[in-house]
């Protein structure tokens, strides 16, 4: 598409199409497509698998997450849990986001080894199946469909995570001297044809937390927020954060806090 614009401008000097208008049209077209796909989001296939996994007795200790895992709303209760995380969990003495909490339950309650989960936590482009953890995250997230984000920012420990996440988003480093905010800190930024949400605004932050976990149509893979954080780090040429680490929780807390009070539509669908 870019090439055709360049060629067209080279051929005629009088004819010029403002790039902004073109981007806007392309976006409007894509939004129509997305709206259509939202009604049959393949993420639902992963929700089904996640629900089975949530209820199945698994791991060395042979217990189900449904009978052992507390996501903050009581043991086994998933409804509305996703939109109220990250939150502080006294039993782990840490602020955790949803994925990190499920990993914690899998290791502490079911007896899985963290290293085994962390070895391949994300679906690769050529994998037919998503890892168990991704299915579980998708299921738990789907149980908060059409609920409002309500991360407990009044809790000092959560506030701490939020503020640390905010500072991390502004931290410039690496060979490109990039920070998260270089791309995601102001309105109207884009990479190639992709508009980038301004994560410091409520609307932009909502796009961030609404998008992941999400089904990515390119390659047909289901990916989580943790993966998105890793990929942003990679694109900044930073070392990637450790899986399910506090750093990732802090960034998710920053975004979720900014998105607070807005409606979550359930697992997302991406280009």
């Amino acid at each position, binding site marked *: 598409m870019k090439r055709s614009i360049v060629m067209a401008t080279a051929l005629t000097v009088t004819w010029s199409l403002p790039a902004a208008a073109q981007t806007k049209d392309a976006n409007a077209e894509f939004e129509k497509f997305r709206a259509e796909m939202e009604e049959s989001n393949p993420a639902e296939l992963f929700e089904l698998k996640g629900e089975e996994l949530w209820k199945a007795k698994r791991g060395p200790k042979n217990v189900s997450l449904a009978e052992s895992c507390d996501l903050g709303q009581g043991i086994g209760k998933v409804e509305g849990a996703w939109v109220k995380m990250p939150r502080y969990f006294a039993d782990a003495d840490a602020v955790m986001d949803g994925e990190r909490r499920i990993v914690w339950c899998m290791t502490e309650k079911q007896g899985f080894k963290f290293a085994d989960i962390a070895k391949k936590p994300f679906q690769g482009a050529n994998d037919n199946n998503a890892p168990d953890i991704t299915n579980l995250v998708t299921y738990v997230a789907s149980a908060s469909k059409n609920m409002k984000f309500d991360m407990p920012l009044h809790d000092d420990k959560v506030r701490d995570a939020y503020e640390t996440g905010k500072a991390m988003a502004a931290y410039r480093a690496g060979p490109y001297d990039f920070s998260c905010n270089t791309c995601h800190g102001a309105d109207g930024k884009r990479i190639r044809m992709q508009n980038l949400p301004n994560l410091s605004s409520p609307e932009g932050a909502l796009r961030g937390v609404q998008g992941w976990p999400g089904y990515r*149509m390119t*390659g047909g893979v289901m990916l989580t927020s943790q993966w998105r954080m890793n990929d942003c780090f990679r694109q900044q040429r930073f070392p990637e954060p450790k899986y399910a680490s506090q750093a990732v929780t802090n960034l998710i807390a920053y975004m979720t806090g900014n998105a607070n009070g807005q409606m979550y539509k359930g697992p997302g669908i991406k280009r």
Partner: protein
Amino acid sequence: MADPMKIRAQMKGDVAEIRILMSHAMETGQRKDAAGNTVPAHFIQSITIDVGGKRVVDGQTGTAISRNPVFGFKMKGAKAGDKVVVNWVDNKGDKRTDEATVA
């Protein structure tokens, strides 16, 4: 063993809107894996859909369809309570049948 489908069937006025989500790799047979070996083709070859005991779709599908395909259509002549039975068979002989009811 193939994973279950997700079927949604809803009356909108006198038209039934039916959407089926299938879980399938839909390998084209054109890709190579990390070791350079061709990934063998694996795709849904035929789909049949019965609504209220009547066959309404009997189709052949190929490798141009994405992974985890969505198949949606609208039809007249269905009514709430009709049973929707979807069946697919892939090129390896694997198959799956799922049911839903028009709401």
